[in-house]
């Protein structure tokens, strides 16, 4: 039986994009209920009941030693060792996930192994959460809702001739995805062209959108581009989820760049991205927070 009926090899693009973009750490539950190896199975049983959970990781400090599952508890009740310490009966053959993995890994692990949950470790091998098929399913549903919402917004406005009302398009930009970076800007340009705007305006819009899109791919953990077209102006918003800009003043200075050397070999990192956007935009704003990320808004007046 498949735990999560999603084909991870060749799903539709939206799904593929989603299961690679979402990381295990964003989906897992990080409020952990743990026990120590000397804890009795009885105590663990009560913990399970109280917290409505079906598996308890046994830890020493932040290191995971094993897991006691509901099944182990049933066995213990059956065989009369419910008062014994966890270490004698916990499962030690652990299969773990890393918090930085995309959830596509988690989905295929649930398909491959019969476990109902996987412990999640960080790079330091510390236990940071647990993930269940339910965590994944509910998060995916949430994301699907969002996708459908934006698809509906796009298609409901596609039939509009001329920009009579706001037309919104959203694009997801993934970290270091230079294969697809440029797609949003090309779409924005195509649309303006189809509306017969003069080429100087299209050029300004192209510069602003391309630079913002590349910034997301180069510097952010991933984010989205939102283009809102109205009769008189185009508002481009580039929003990411981090890591934030420590010194905005510097980022707006021509020639200043934090791009690493392999990104520079691709021709990026001239330190002119944001200055270019600022130069062509009629309105420009940037806010950045080291916890929540950066939002840049650039408006181009279309008249």
């Amino acid at each position, binding site marked *: 039986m498949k735990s999560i009926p999603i084909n991870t090899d060749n799903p539709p693009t939206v799904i593929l994009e989603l299961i690679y973009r979402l990381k295990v750490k964003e989906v897992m539950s990080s409020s952990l209920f743990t026990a120590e190896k000397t804890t009795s199975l009885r105590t663990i049983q009560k913990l399970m009941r109280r917290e409505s959970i079906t598996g308890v990781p046994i830890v020493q400090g932040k290191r995971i030693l094993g897991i006691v599952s509901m099944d182990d508890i049933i066995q213990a009740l059956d065989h009369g060792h419910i008062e014994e310490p966890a270490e004698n009966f916990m499962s030690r053959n652990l299969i773990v996930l890393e918090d930085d993995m995309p959830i596509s890994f988690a989905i295929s692990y649930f398909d491959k192994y019969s476990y109902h949950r996987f412990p999640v470790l960080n790079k330091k091998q510390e236990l940071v959460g647990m993930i269940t098929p339910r965590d994944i399913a509910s998060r995916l549903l949430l994301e699907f809702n969002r996708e459908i919402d934006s698809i509906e917004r796009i298609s409901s406005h596609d039939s509009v001739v001329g920009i009579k009302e706001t037309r919104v398009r959203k694009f997801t930009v993934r970290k270091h995805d230079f294969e697809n970076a440029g797609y949003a800007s090309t779409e924005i340009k195509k649309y303006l062209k189809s509306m017969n705007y003069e080429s100087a305006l299209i050029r300004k819009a192209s510069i602003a959108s391309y630079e913002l899109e590349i910034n997301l791919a180069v510097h952010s953990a991933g984010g989205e581009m939102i283009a809102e077209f109205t009769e008189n102006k185009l508002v481009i918003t580039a929003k990411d989820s981090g890591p934030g800009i420590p010194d905005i003043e510097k980022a707006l200075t021509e020639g200043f760049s934090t791009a690493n050397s392999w990104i520079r070999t691709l021709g*990026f990192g001239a330190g002119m991205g944001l200055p270019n956007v600022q130069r062509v935009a009629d309105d420009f704003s940037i806010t950045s927070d080291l916890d929540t990320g950066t939002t840049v808004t650039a408006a181009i007046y279309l008249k």
Partner: protein
Amino acid sequence: MKSNILSKTLHYTQIYVPDQEIEISSGYTSDLLSDVMGNAQENCALITIQGHKNTVAVASLIGIRTIILCNNRKAPEEMIAAAKEHAIALYSTADTQFTASWKLAHLLEHNGELKRNI
């Protein structure tokens, strides 16, 4: 000046040429895409060693239709595919960017005619 001068007069290799008569009105030499984006003029020939499909993307966005790859840099398949998609001419040459730049400047100045041996 028309783009076919690059193959006819300068003997630059045609990697992909959608049209022999693309207008070239100036040149811009750079490997930094944001720099190109911010400063290059429409209808210029871009002289670069940046053999990557992103170069084509930038060119297309700002109306550059001719790219000259210097120092015998190879154009990867995706770059050629992108050039086809956006109808952008790709040339390559063993010339350095400096040499290609002054040759192009010379031709532009003399309306496509060679006034000296190059």
